[in-house]
Every structure is written in structure tokens, then in C-alpha cells.
């Protein structure tokens, strides 16, 4: 029993079990995330020494404007987006039991884009930007429902789901282009900026909208721990142990969709994060869902923050969308997965 330690509530109604080695890894991941966070603040078009960054975090410094108004919201946004996509991908991969599941491949992100673009084109003048995440979550939800229904043919097979997701992604792209072309050019350029999947121009208003949504959703995901760990034994066992499989499957899917939708709402589709983060998490952490949720969130945010550091600094003075670099790592990784799972894929 030395491998685990457990937190219990009074009367054992609720308990969380932690794998000790994983706990150390998670703590190290948090440290690394913090370090990358600091580096993100210091790197950019003007270099600010780490000492000055510290000073700013404690009190005042001469770089207050750059740090507080420009870099901090952008870095926090990167953290939130990465965390959201990472957990969303983790749940999705577990749900459809396929290592290739990822919100951007299955078409969830595409649906979120349609929701967000419709909002920007038709409602942004009349409604506050606070509602943008809701619009994009709804877009993601509707699209996921459509994909799920279309994949249904005596049940849903993962491969059919992914295949139809790819098809629907093409359709959502076309719809987005359609609205972009047919709206006024000022709105069109706003949409285009949003679409490129960049953290450029993130501000505190957006961060304060997104922060509670993402953290709440991730927190809820951790509470599904018990259910998911039992479910990994298979539907029959789970039913036998009293888990209402269909209900929880639906709730988990809803969580995954909401996370992806929220993450996309301000930063646009940052590709492949939802694919890679859960794989790395499973590689280095003990296979319990609570560990994996926290791990995927941290790794996802590390990937996005890291990609954004490169995007901001590698080609100065240009600011390249972070999505370019996540795709640069993600697509080869996807192909590697395709290669490694070649027997599964032929089914």
C-alpha cells in the first residue's frame, strides 16, 4: 500500500487516492509550469530580466505596463487554453477508446469556431463579449451532437466517428469562410484574426471571463475520477458496480465539449494540443484519472505557453500564431501514433 496515499472525507463518502510517484511528478510539473510562466513573462520583443519579473510579481517595477497589460494576460490565456484542450482531449480519448481522439480532429473545435464566428458576425455589436465562450461552447455541442448522430449505425464505432468528424470539419471550415466573405470587411478581419489560433492581443477582460469557466470544468472532471477508473474495466463491469454508464458517458462528453469550446472561444483553434497532452500524461503518470486530468492540464498549458514563447520570439518582429508550432509538433506525433497503432487501425 506504500505506493498510494488517500484523502478521505468523514464516513468515507468521498475519497481521493494519489499515487505517490505520480504526485512527485505532478509537483515537478507544476514547478516547470511556473518556471515556463516566468520565462514567458521575460521573453518577447523586449527582453525583461527575470529579476525584474520577480520584482513586478512582488510589487512595483519599471516594466509594469508591458508585464501587467501585455504579457501577463497573454501568458495566463495560454495556460488556460492549454489546460482546457489537454483535459478535453484526455476525456475524449477515454470516451471513444481511441488514441487518435482529439477535439480538433473529431470536429469539436470546428463547431466551436462556427459558434464563435456566428457570434462575432451577428451578435457582438449588441451583446457583450462575455457571451462569446457560451456561443462557442454551444457551437461545439451542436456539432458534436450532429457528428454523433451521423456516426450512429447500430452503435457508434470510434473510427466512423473520427472519419465523419473529419468530414464535418471540412464543412465547418466552409461555413466559417462563407460568413467571413459575406460580412463587412471590418468584421471579416476580426474573424480572421480570431481564426488564426493566436494568443496575440489577449487582454484581462477575456482572461477573467475564461478563468472561472475552465477551472470549474477541470475541477468537475476530477470528481469523475471514481467513475472513469471503474469504467476503464469495461461497460459490463462498470454497470455491475452500479455505474450508470450511459448517463456518465453523456456527462463526460459534455464536459469534454465544453472545455474544448471554452478553450477555443478566445484563442481560436490551437491544433493538436488535445491530442498530445493526454498521451504524454499517460506516459509519465500512474494511470488514475485524477492524476491524468491534472497532468494533461499542466502538460497542455506547457505546450501552449512554450509554443507561444517560440511564436513571439523566433521571428521578431513578427508574431506568429502559436498554432503553427503546436501543429509542427502535433502532426508528426499524430503520424507516429498512426504508425504505432497500425494494427488497431485496420479493424
Amino acid at each position: 500500500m506504500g505506493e498510494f496515499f488517500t484523502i478521505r472525507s468523514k464516513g468515507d463518502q468521498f475519497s481521493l487516492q494519489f499515487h505517490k510517484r505520480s504526485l512527485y511528478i505532478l509537483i515537478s510539473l507544476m514547478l516547470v509550469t511556473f518556471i515556463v510562466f516566468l520565462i514567458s513573462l521575460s521573453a518577447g520583443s523586449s527582453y525583461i530580466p527575470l529579476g525584474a519579473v520577480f520584482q513586478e510579481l512582488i510589487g512595483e517595477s519599471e516594466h509594469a505596463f508591458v508585464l501587467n497589460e501585455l504579457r501577463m494576460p497573454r501568458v495566463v490565456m495560454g495556460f488556460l487554453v492549454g489546460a482546457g484542450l489537454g483535459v478535453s482531449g484526455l476525456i475524449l480519448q477515454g470516451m471513444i477508446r481511441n488514441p487518435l481522439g482529439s477535439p480538433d480532429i473529431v470536429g469539436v473545435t470546428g463547431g466551436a469556431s462556427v459558434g464563435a464566428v456566428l457570434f462575432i458576425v451577428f451578435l457582438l455589436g449588441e451583446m457583450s463579449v462575455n457571451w462569446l465562450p457560451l456561443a462557442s461552447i454551444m457551437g461545439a455541442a451542436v456539432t458534436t451532437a450532429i457528428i454523433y448522430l451521423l456516426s450512429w449505425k447500430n452503435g457508434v464505432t470510434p473510427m466512423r466517428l473520427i472519419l465523419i468528424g473529419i468530414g464535418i470539419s471540412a464543412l465547418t471550415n466552409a461555413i466559417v469562410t462563407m460568413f467571413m466573405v459575406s460580412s463587412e470587411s471590418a468584421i471579416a478581419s476580426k474573424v480572421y484574426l480570431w481564426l488564426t489560433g493566436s494568443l496575440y492581443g489577449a487582454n484581462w477582460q477575456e482572461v477573467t471571463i475564461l478563468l472561472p469557466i475552465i477551472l470549474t470544468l477541470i475541477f468537475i472532471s476530477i470528481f469523475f475520477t471514481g467513475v472513469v477508473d471503474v469504467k476503464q474495466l469495461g461497460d459490463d463491469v462498470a454497470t455491475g458496480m452500479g455505474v450508470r454508464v450511459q448517463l456518465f458517458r453523456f456527462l463526460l462528453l459534455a464536459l469534454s465539449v465544453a472545455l474544448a469550446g471554452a478553450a477555443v472561444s478566445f484563442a481560436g483553434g490551437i491544433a493538436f494540443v488535445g491530442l498530445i497532452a493526454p498521451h504524454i500524461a499517460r506516459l509519465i503518470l500512474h494511470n488514475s484519472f485524477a492524476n491524468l486530468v491534472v497532468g494533461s492540464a499542466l502538460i497542455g498549458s506547457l505546450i501552449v505557453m512554450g509554443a507561444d514563447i517560440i511564436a513571439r520570439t523566433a521571428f521578431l518582429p513578427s508574431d506568429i500564431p502559436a498554432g503553427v508550432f503546436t501543429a509542427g509538433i502535433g502532426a508528426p506525433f499524430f503520424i507516429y501514433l498512426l504508425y504505432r497503432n497500425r494494427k488497431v487501425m485496420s479493424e
Partner: protein
Amino acid sequence: MSKFIINRHFKWTILLGIIVIFLTAGFLSIAIGKTSIPLSTVWDAFIHYDPSSTNQVIIRTSRITRTLIAMTVGASLSIAGALMQALTRNPLASPDIFGVNAGALFFIVAAATFFSVESLSGYMWIGFVGAGVAGTIVYLLGSMGEDGLSPIRIVLAGAAISALFISFTQGMLVLDEQRMQSVLFWLSGSVAGRELDILLPVLPFLLGAIVLSFFIGKPLNILMSGDDVAKNLGQNTGLLKLVIGITIVFLAGGSVAVAGSIGFIGLVVPHIVKGITGPNYQWIIPISGLCGATLLLGADIAARLIIAPQEMPIGVMTALFGTPFFIYIARKGVKKSG
């Protein structure tokens, strides 16, 4: 399959019907647009050209070019799709799903950004190379399983390769905003606003490949009865596959060089045609070309009308009608024909 074995007479009737629709679409494509031009003027522009008539000048300078490009690209993409579906025995194979469009696009933009290639013929050759590279990668990735080419694996690999190339292309365009203006029209996938100069250097390759594909039909029929059967009948299957591969690269790469990335035509048309002609590639290939040209003309006319006076990119139109088709095939099951 017996219902497809219809008599030659009936086939010729259908062929005649398609040609009539094709010609009508061609005339409409010249007549319809921002300024609608009466069909009689269209006729006159060909027969008695009068340079003082604005309408006739519009026809001669812009509409004809546009119509020619839509025809050529539609035919090329459809034939490329038919050949790819045969070669990979995958009903979902088509240039855009194979990542061929994205590959050609990426190579063209990279050449323009990093190596300052600016000539049209330069773009064209680089487009061919890009199409070949992307297509080969996806083909190899799709065939690495134990059971040979798996349809689903090809689609997934194609999606990944496309995502990679497209995001790199976007990155390069952000890097170099001035270049972006000159390269942007390849991105959007459109047949509008192109000069005849863009089509002319590519046209011989496209037409050559189309003509070559007509001769591929007969040996392809033999190949489709199985590699072993074909070999026993004395066919050099390796050489045939190589020729088909090169034809596909010229057709798809050339189309991207002229019109950018236009999806789903190569997927949809061969399926419809196979439904009419049955599994005979001597018929499938030329009729695919004709139907593809007609369909892209139709899509282009719709793109001009749907939000007039603005224009919809033609790639949007093809995606709108192509996706339901893709889903239909995906639901029907891609395994069986493997």
C-alpha cells in the same frame, strides 16, 4: 453489378446529355455575373467580335478565361480523383483528402517566401513537386499496415499531413505580409480574377495528363481485376502504377497552381459517374472529366449568384455539397471495397 451493364446505345445517349448540359453551363458561365450579358451577345462575341461593345470585351477578357479555368480544373481534379480511387481501392481517395492540395500549396508558398521564386512556371513545377511529395507520404503511411492500404488510415494520414502543411503555410504568410498579397489567391481556392497568363503555362501539362488518362482506362480495367491477374496477363503493373501516379501529380498539382485548393470535386464526381457507367474505366475517366468540368462550372456560377454582388470562394461551394457526400460514403462503410 449487373444493373450497370447497360447497352452501348444508352451510354451514348447519356454522354450526349452530359455534353449538352456541359455546353449550357459553359454558356451560362460566360453570361452570368456582376453584369448579366444576354446569350445572344455571348454568341456574337464568338462569331462577330465587336471590340467597341463593353459586354463583348468583358466576355473576351475575363469571362472566357474564368470559364476555361473552371472547366480545366474541374476535369483535372475529377480525373485525378477517379485514378486515385482506383489506384488505392479507396472510395474516399481524392486529391484534397490525400493532402495533395495542401502539399502543393505549402511548397509554392515556401518557394515564394524563402527562395524568392516568382515566375509562374516556377510555381507550377514546385506545385507538382509538392503534390508528389504529399501524395507519396500519405500513400506510404496508408500502406504500412499488414493488410496493405487501409482506407481509414489514408484518410487520417491525409488529414494530419494537410493540417501540418496548412498551418506551416499560414505561419509563412504571417511572416511575410507583403508576399502574402501575391500568394494569397492560391490559398482561397478560386477561379475568379485570374489572367489567361496563369492558365497558359499549365494548360499543356493538364491537357497532356487528361489525354494520357484516356489511354490508361483499358489497362486500368485489367489492373482492377487484381494485381495477380494483371501480372499473369502480362501487364507490367509497377510501370502502370507509376504512370498513374505521375498523371495524378500533374493533374492535381497543376490544378492547385492554377486555382488553389478546391476540395471535394475529385471525391464526388467519380462516384456519381461510376453509378452511371458501371465499373469500366474506359468510360469512367472521360465522363468524370466532363462531369467534373460541368460541376465546377455550376459551382462557380452558384458562387457568383449566392451573395451577389459579392462572390463566394468556389472552395466553399464545393465543400457545402461535398461534405454530405463524404459522410454518405463514410457511413456506407469504406472497408468493403478495400
